[in-house]
């Protein structure tokens, strides 16, 4: 009798958990960083660059102001001096220095939600799983 009454509740819970598993985590949710004023876009022809290490820290770059782990493993936010919403972002997985090399991996880009000067970069292993990796990014405006 007890089992019969709890069965609908168990079914509802199982369905809810199943739908959560299907939906997966939400990436590139609005950034927690807020800027008082939006920066102006850079002059046409300007290229911003950044080299980011495996910890998500900015190592060097041109016009890059910060880099940080955005939403856990494999996600990084890179910020620049100007509004980059009108630019193209091209990135490649790669070491920050001249020692060693990275194995084959994926990288994708998208504008950072809520941050006009930010780019949201995700790095993946060859199996398609999010993984912390160093990378180089070139933002052409």
């Amino acid at each position, binding site marked *: 009798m007890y089992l019969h009454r709890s069965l609908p509740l168990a079914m509802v819970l199982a369905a809810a958990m199943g739908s959560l598993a299907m939906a997966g985590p939400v*990436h*590139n949710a609005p950034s927690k960083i807020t800027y008082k004023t939006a920066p102006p876009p850079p002059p*046409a*022809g*300007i*290229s911003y660059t950044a080299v980011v290490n495996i910890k998500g820290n900015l190592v060097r770059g041109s016009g890059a102001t910060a880099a940080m782990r955005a939403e856990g493993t494999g*996600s990084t936010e890179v910020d620049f001096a100007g509004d980059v*919403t*009108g*630019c*193209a*972002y*091209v*990135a*490649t997985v790669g070491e920050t220095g001249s020692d060693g090399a990275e194995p084959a991996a*994926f*990288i*994708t*880009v*998208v*504008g*950072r*939600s*809520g*941050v*006009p000067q930010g780019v*949201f970069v*995700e790095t*993946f292993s*060859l*199996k*398609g799983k999010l993984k912390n990796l160093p990378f180089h990014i*070139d933002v*052409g*405006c």
Partner: protein
Amino acid sequence: MIRPTILSCAAVLAFTVAASAQIPPPAHVNGFAVVDSGGDLIRGKNATAAMHLDLGIYEVDFSTSVKKCVFTATKGRPDSNGSNVAGFVTVAGRGGTDTGVYIKTFDAKGMSVDVGFHLNVRC
């Protein structure tokens, strides 16, 4: 003792001057394009058109010849919402036109798939 030192200094100076003369000027972006999965040109510089040719195949055209330029591209949405799944992008000059770039996009398993991408062209 003095003569060899002067000669070696002159050699180093000559090498430095020669090396600095060979350093190319800083590269500037001569064009870029951000294209969505449907092949629409969302934004760009010197990009005149983009089109979806077939599953996972796109052409992006520019206002001048890009025959001798460098093409780099990364899979990516054109906006600031959501994110992407892993995938590949490859580039080539477009056959038959000096102003075009030929783009192919793939999923993580190497199968052709329609996805948005960002393309930089430096000449």
